[in-house]
């Protein structure tokens, strides 16, 4: 939010409640369309909550603020999570979320940068980190303190351009650049088709200060984001081990989590179960 640095103390209970709101929005969106990249969205919900409601400096009423921190969603198909976060942050209306993926909606199933709050065109995987490097260079030329956070995925690590960008970030000593590497173990053809392990060692060997945590542990995410603030000449990589569908048992257990499609009755059952699990009384 608008401030010069993240708050010293994180209200973890409030952040967890916010993550539940993001998940609730995502289920509404997916139900409306009957399908979506809900598994990925639910998996990254905790990290996006930590960013948008704790770590990032931005002003919902002045999206063009030059000194804002940038969040670049490289995996455009995770848009369902970004729309939920932007709605909660007051950047897009909550009421608009039901248009997710519909004709003429600006809440696309894969992000275009024409929607407010979107800092990069996603979708063609392997683009985000390089654009993050460019933005970090530009901000440094302007002597801005703003930082650049780039989300990318384990499958995306198979794109060679990701590593071109990783090399250049450490070469240019971009210590205000933070890569959030979502390792959820799935990609289009199923479980990761090309073994990318050891992921953290790869980033370290490319000169990045690297952390590896449970990406669904809010406490760990907040704590690690704080460590990544250090301006020590090195870009930071946070390897997030996440569970696709996190928080919604039937989606967690689904084998087809890359793109999840069920009928409306099943969506209702999934949502009932979710609300029961988070303690809402219906």
């Amino acid at each position, binding site marked *: 939010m608008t401030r010069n640095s993240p708050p010293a103390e994180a209200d973890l209970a409030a952040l967890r409640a916010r993550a539940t709101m993001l998940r609730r929005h995502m289920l509404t969106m997916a139900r409306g369309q009957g399908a979506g990249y809900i598994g990925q969205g639910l998996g990254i919900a905790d990290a996006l909550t930590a960013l948008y409601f704790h770590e990032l400096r931005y002003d919902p009423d002045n999206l063009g603020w*030059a000194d804002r921190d940038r969040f670049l969603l490289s995996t455009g198909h995770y848009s369902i999570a970004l729309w939920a976060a932007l709605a909660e942050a007051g950047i897009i209306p909550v009421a608009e979320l039901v248009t997710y993926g519909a004709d003429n909606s600006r809440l696309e199933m894969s992000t*275009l*940068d024409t929607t407010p709050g979107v*800092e*990069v*065109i996603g*979708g*063609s995987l*392997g*683009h985000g*980190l*390089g*654009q*993050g*490097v*460019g*933005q*970090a*260079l*530009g*901000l440094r*030329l*302007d002597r801005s303190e703003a930082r650049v956070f780039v989300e990318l995925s384990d499958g995306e690590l198979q794109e*060679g*351009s990701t590593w*071109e*960008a990783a*090399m*250049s970030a450490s*070469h*240019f000593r971009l210590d205000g650049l933070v890569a959030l590497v979502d390792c959820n173990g799935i990609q289009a053809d199923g479980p990761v088709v090309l073994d990318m392990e050891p992921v953290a060692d790869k980033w370290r060997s490319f000169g990045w200060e690297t952390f590896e945590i449970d990406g669904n542990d809010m406490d760990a995410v907040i704590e690690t984001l704080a460590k990544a603030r250090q301006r020590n000449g090195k870009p930071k990589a946070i390897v997030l081990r996440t569970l696709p569908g996190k928080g919604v048992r039937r989606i967690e257990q689904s084998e087809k989590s890359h793109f999840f499609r069920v009928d409306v009755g099943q969506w209702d059952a999934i949502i009932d179960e979710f609300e029961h699990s988070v303690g809402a009384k219906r």
Partner: protein
Amino acid sequence: MSRAMEAGRTLAMGENEAAGGGRQSVDAPFGKALARLGQERENIVGLTADLGKYTDIHPFRDAYPERFFNVGMAEQNLVAVAAGLARTGKQPFATTYGVFASRRAFDFVAIALAHSNLDVKLVAGLPGLTTGYGGTHQAIEDLALMRMIPGLTIIDPMDATEIDAATVAMSDHRGPVYMRLLRGAVPVVLEPGYRFEIGKARQLRDGKDVGIISTGLMSERAVDAAALLEKRGISVAVLHVPTIKPFDAETVAAFAASVGQLVTAENHVVVGGLASLVVETLFDAGIVRKVTRIGLPDRYIECGAVPTLQQKYGLTVEAVVERIVGLQ
């Protein structure tokens, strides 16, 4: 001619590939223009992918080292980083060879730059047949590839004067641009005061028997060929089309109507580039004309000395003259 007699010196990278006709030349006109612009336009930044010396951007690098980034041999990242810089209000000029900017980084040019209409200028060396390094380095089809990208402006300048003017025009223009680069000692063909405008063709010479529509370094060859043909009683007009996209269809159609035979001349394969644009333009205007297409064949070109190869593939002044005489 025997193979041994044909063999010439293979021009190494870094040498001049465009100088011809015994004209005056300017060294590194692009880099000089960029360095000059950089003085007043502080948001201009320079990038290259390990080809700074070979793409004439060194005058800018030397003047503004803190605004210059060499990303190494990584053309996808070159374009991505330029896109990111543009998103922070910078105006990046990124250089590499045409083959790498088009073939290797195509998705980045299309999506990272053009889809978002970012203010990035790609300046691409070794256009067409201007190196003896063979198919890996000869950007013979870059215009065809790049013109398929929506919103991308494409410039193929003919000489040092135009490179200077186009560099300024590119910077004045908001949006992605791909410019073919003639590097090293680049001949001066156009008069001082020549006005370059994105999207405008210029008639360089009047004539009635034959009209050559040309772009890039072939416009110099076309002008020289026209002078020689005049001595042989053939009146040749030359229309120079430095902007491939947006294409000056109106001027091209009017020019075609004003001449007898119609010839296109480009330092590029004869499919997908200038010739195709001219034919599409004429069809759109309801004009059915025979068009003689001078340019490279639809094949990869071997290694060899540039003059030898340009003669073999019909890009020299002499070859243009012969081709047009043959039409009479």
